[in-house]
């Protein structure tokens, strides 16, 4: 089972004040009823009133619960649908923050990322590529084009000071990549080269949004779990405001979460060449196996079942009020 908007389920808390309200008001309402109808026939009415209040609360709560479940985008099971997209549009989002100058990946994370991008492009003919660089801000350097030479020229000269805004904002990088895509009817993919060290932004929200747009993100983890210092070109060490050397290491949890939220898959820097083999399955949300290339796997959306149940219970709540019990005059 998959839930597209899990945060919607927090609204289920509303059933608590809804129920508490009726419990607190029950005795008071009973007293009011007694005043209105007179104590001489109150006993008959009070039983009916108690039963009706109980079923009214029950149907009201069930109405709310099923309504909220229908909004949460619950998908149960999977089905195969026809896939009518052809051709690829791939945008590389390359992190050029200072931590990418770390040397735990030879010679530096940034240099290695640039090389891996160049190699990847050479193995993917008839594909449009785009390039986004990001740090504290993001910049669309090359729009979608089949001219890989123009991307190579930029990658050969890529440096951390191409963008002046300091920081590391993966959210902006993903956003700029999403704005780069052009054509309908093509498979769209973002390959994110980063060490996952985020200082600003909400990358997970943006990753979830990409997933809802059928644009998977493939994070490529540049770095290792060893904390290493960052050396600049002039040999200086990057230090924090207290003068201590900054140590950087890969943030695997974030990158795996980004992949999961966008229906992508995470790879380490030394496994980039495997992406090409897995691309077919990632873009169609399939597991490796024998699938017809014109099919894709989607979840079964069952919101209409929950919605119908909520309408039925709302209908019951009307009936409970309006139905006259035959034992009562």
């Amino acid at each position, binding site marked *: 089972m998959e839930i597209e908007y899990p945060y919607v389920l927090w609204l289920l808390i509303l059933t608590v004040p809804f129920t508490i309200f009726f419990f607190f008001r029950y005795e008071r309402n009973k007293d009011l009823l007694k005043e209105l109808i007179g104590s001489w026939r109150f006993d008959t009415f009070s039983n009916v009133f108690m039963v009706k209040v109980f079923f009214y609360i029950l149907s009201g709560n069930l109405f709310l619960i099923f309504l909220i479940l229908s909004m949460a985008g619950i998908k149960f099971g999977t089905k195969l649908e026809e896939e009518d997209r052809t051709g690829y549009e791939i945008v590389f989002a390359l992190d050029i923050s200072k931590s990418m100058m770390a040397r735990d990946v030879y010679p530096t994370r940034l240099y290695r990322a640039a090389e891996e991008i160049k190699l990847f492009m050479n193995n993917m003919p008839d594909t449009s590529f785009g390039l986004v660089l990001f740090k504290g801000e993001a910049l669309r350097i090359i*729009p979608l084009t089949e001219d890989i030479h123009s991307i190579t*020229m930029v990658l050969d000269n890529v440096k951390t000071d191409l963008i002046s805004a300091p920081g590391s904002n993966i959210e902006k990088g993903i956003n700029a990549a999403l704005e780069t895509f052009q054509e309908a009817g093509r498979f769209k993919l973002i390959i994110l080269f980063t060490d996952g060290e985020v200082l600003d932004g909400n990358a997970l929200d943006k990753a979830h949004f990409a997933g809802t747009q059928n644009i998977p993100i493939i994070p490529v983890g540049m770095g290792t779990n060893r904390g290493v210092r960052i050396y600049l070109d002039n040999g200086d060490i990057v230090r924090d405001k207290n003068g201590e050397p900054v140590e950087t290491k890969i943030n695997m949890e974030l990158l795996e979460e980004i992949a999961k939220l966008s229906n992508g898959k995470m790879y380490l820097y030394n496994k980039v060449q495997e992406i090409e083999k897995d691309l077919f399955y990632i873009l169609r949300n399939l597991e490796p196996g024998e699938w017809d290339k014109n099919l894709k796997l989607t979840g079964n959306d069952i919101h209409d079942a929950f919605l119908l149940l909520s309408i039925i219970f709302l209908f019951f709540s009307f009936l409970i009020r309006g139905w006259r019990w035959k034992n009562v005059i």
Partner: protein
Amino acid sequence: MGFEFHAAFLIFIIIPPLIYFVHFRKNRGGKIIFSFEIWKGKGFYPRFSIRKFLYFISYGLLWICFCCLIFALAGPVKIERHKVYLQKGIDIMIVLDESLSMLAQDFTPKNRFTTAKRVINDFIKGRENDQIGLVSFSEEAVLRVPATIDYPLLLDTLDKLDVSALKDGTAIGMGISLACLHLQYSTAQDKVIILLTDGENNAGDIEPEKAALVADELGIRIYTIGMGQEEAYMEYIDPDTGKTVTGVYMEYKDPNSGELIRGVYSGKFDEKLLRTIAEISGAKYFHASNTGTLNQIFEQIDLLEETEKRIKINVDKAELYREFILTGLIFFFISFFIRKIILKELL
């Protein structure tokens, strides 16, 4: 907007009897019956009051909530249609001279350069499914935008182009070579360069004829457009020397100093060279003497490079049921608040 499950609208049939059952049926529940025979007077009929108005509003909202849920169940969708091309278009590189002479004011409304940019802008907007790129050159050549479908970015870059960006000089061969470099791996059915210049080749390491030969080997056609008309040149008196100068007036604002430099451009484009380049690559040469002819030339190139377009229409549907559910939920809670808190309804 459309609906995917029209059968859900059948639920509306039960609303009128339900309204009757809840609000108008004689023996409906929720009523308390009083006997007033003893008094033999009229019954209790409360006059119109704010309470009655709120009662009407609260139940109105509740019924609207019910209707919103039915609409949500009917599967409302926002339909968007996208054109998908089943065949690639052609790749076009526009190679634009941005030397200082392009500031000559013999093209309306301003000068050769702004007119060229405007005409190219219209040309790009008239194309579909073709990857278009931009190279500019004066003493050096620079790739401004690689061949791309991203027309908004291309048009934005074209709009920001300025003749003061590169040094003076005209390196036609370099411009053609750079365009060929970025078209060589193109898999498009046709590859085209459109070269606009108003001068002779006087800079760069690569001769234009050799660049044209390379283009021909790569299967790239080069349309050449020579801008300017010597017959329209006028006589001016040079204020420094007092001598008569024949040419076309031009102005240049230095971006560093802000100084406005005025002068007369006497040069002309090398027609023979442009013809040769076009012939080598199997395309055509054009002469643009004014704005009108430049427009016509681009229209002609547009027709010459017309390609068959096979398209299909993809229909994308964005679900809207959540919006209807949320609206219904809001109405439900407002109704609940009015009935239970303000009107103090017992049940």
